[in-house]
């Protein structure tokens, strides 16, 4: 997902000499091209100094550069949060923040590299758009969307290689929805709303119920802020919703859905928010951590069983 995103940005950068990438000492094959072809003009590194990266980006972007910044997700969000608030929220400087490895993407790296509160803290910044793609197809589209936007944006890119979701639900079928920040897979009285890697878990749960002739929908919300009118309308077509996230419940996806329902007087019921109640780290791989937190497929099925039985 990371390489797909940066490959797209690289192609745009070839056409637009004002596109500048700044990273905080990040390695990736897709970034090698930037260093080789654009060093000293469109590519810079601040070293391991995320605060300075966001400050420098503020200077460049206000002078007219289209700036993308890149670091490991916890460090591009929490470490430099106040500078982002001032640059993007207060002064509306259109900087793009690209974070790799949200949730438990860096599973065995441990708690310093886990990130389970970024949606909460980043959505508190005014003017900042927030994206979370679930596969390469969406990541590629979001790269262009962020480039074209006049607003600042934060995108959280999963580190895990996730399969494209187009095969079972053609991308063309979802084209208008994708432009409005989401995809819809299937239908039913109930839908699971999810984002990023957890959309894949939601689809596994959907398949489990489908095999039992119980149709449920899955909404893949990749534009977490702003929530589009189309998504609100689509969400309202369901009777009940369950949200699913690899993120703290405080201020995360479930909160976004609950607030959207209340603030817009929508009639749909959010019956359950599934996510992290608190944070305790563990090792043994991402699946193991998800089981521990009860956000794995089996735990989600247990929760939904309670709702539909």
């Amino acid at each position: 997902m990371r390489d797909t995103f940066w490959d797209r940005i690289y192609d745009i950068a070839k056409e637009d000499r004002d596109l500048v990438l700044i990273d905080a000492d990040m390695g990736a094959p897709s970034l090698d091209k930037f260093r080789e072809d654009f060093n000293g003009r469109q590519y810079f590194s601040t070293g391991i100094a995320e605060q300075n990266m966001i400050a420098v980006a503020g200077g460049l972007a206000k002078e007219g550069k289209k700036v993308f910044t890149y670091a490991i997700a916890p460090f591009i969000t929490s470490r430099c949060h106040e500078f982002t608030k001032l640059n993007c929220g207060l002064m509306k400087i259109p900087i793009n923040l690209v974070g790799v490895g949200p949730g438990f993407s860096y599973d065995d790296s441990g708690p310093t590299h886990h990130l389970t509160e970024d949606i909460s803290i980043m959505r508190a910044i005014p003017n900042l758009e927030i994206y979370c793609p679930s596969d390469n197809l969406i990541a590629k589209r979001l790269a262009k969307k962020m480039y074209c936007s006049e607003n600042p944006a934060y995108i959280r890119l999963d580190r895990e290689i996730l399969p494209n979701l187009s095969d079972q639900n053609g991308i063309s079928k979802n084209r208008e929805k994708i432009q409005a920040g989401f995809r819809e897979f299937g239908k039913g009285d109930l839908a699971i709303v999810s984002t990023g890697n957890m959309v894949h878990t939601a689809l596994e749960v959907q398949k489990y119920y489908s095999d039992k002739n119980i149709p449920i929908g899955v909404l893949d919300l990749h534009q977490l802020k702003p929530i589009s009118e189309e998504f609100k309308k689509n969400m309202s077509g369901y009777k009940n919703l369950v949200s699913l996230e690899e993120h703290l419940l405080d201020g995360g996806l479930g909160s976004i859905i609950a607030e959207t329902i209340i603030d817009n007087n929508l009639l749909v019921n959010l019956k359950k928010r599934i996510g992290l109640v608190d944070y305790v780290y563990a090792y043994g791989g991402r699946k193991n951590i998800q089981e521990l937190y009860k956000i794995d497929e089996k735990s989600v099925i247990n929760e939904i069983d309670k709702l539909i039985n």
Partner: protein
Amino acid sequence: MEKEQIIKLQRKANDFREETLDMCIDAGTGHVTSSFSCAEILTSLYSGNILKYKSDEPKWDKRDRFILSKGQASPILYVTLANAGFFPKDWLNTFCKKEAKFGVHLQNTVPGVEYSTGSLGHGLGLGAGVTLRAKIDKKNYHTFVLLGDAELQEGSNWESAMFASSYNLNNLTAIVDRNGYGVLGATEDIVKLNPLEKKFRSFGWDVKTIDGHSIKEFYEATNNFRDYKRGKPLVIIAETVKGKGIKSWENKALVHGMAPKGEDAIKLKGELKKYSSRGEYE
């Protein structure tokens, strides 16, 4: 620089102090002492033909960029900008009031202000970005960033200092208003900044230390700032006095961020008048 010009600018700096004090007394707030330590620096930059700017075209692309990182000194910058013609002087009468165009910390919605500052440790990195853009696009503007000295206790400054020298940002000049005081007292009694010159040198900067209240010395320190044969960014450590001009508040702890009230206000205005008319210009 001719002595007459220095005297003229010195008078202007004191006029700016008086206008700043009046504005803060009227509003009942504002960082008077932080403003007064950098009066000569701002006056020289804006009224002494150091900065290139067009007050009727604040976004003029060829302007030099000035970033007041110590955003709490906004009162005297607002006075300086109003006198330079960036906006009507009667805006100053609204400082911090309901109808105000600006308040205690610096806002970039005001003509002539590049960035909203007040969160210390932010300005040098912004300035590095602005300067880097000039390098990339071969623009001739110069960037000045005015820092507070206690502000240098924020680690982000040193990230930016390393960055600026690593990318040879010789079109960047930082000025440190070395008034020696934070809120609680002297920086050297709290978290030491010295040896400050050595610190900047070791971070790859050229360093000049001057008397920050001497317009002559400020001119000498900046006389060749567009000489880009120099491969490094330049920092001018301007040794100043916090609250310069109001004797009873000079170098005084715990008056940071305050405007005098009642009898204090009358007393300090009198002290400033006495200082302004002392005739010891150099």
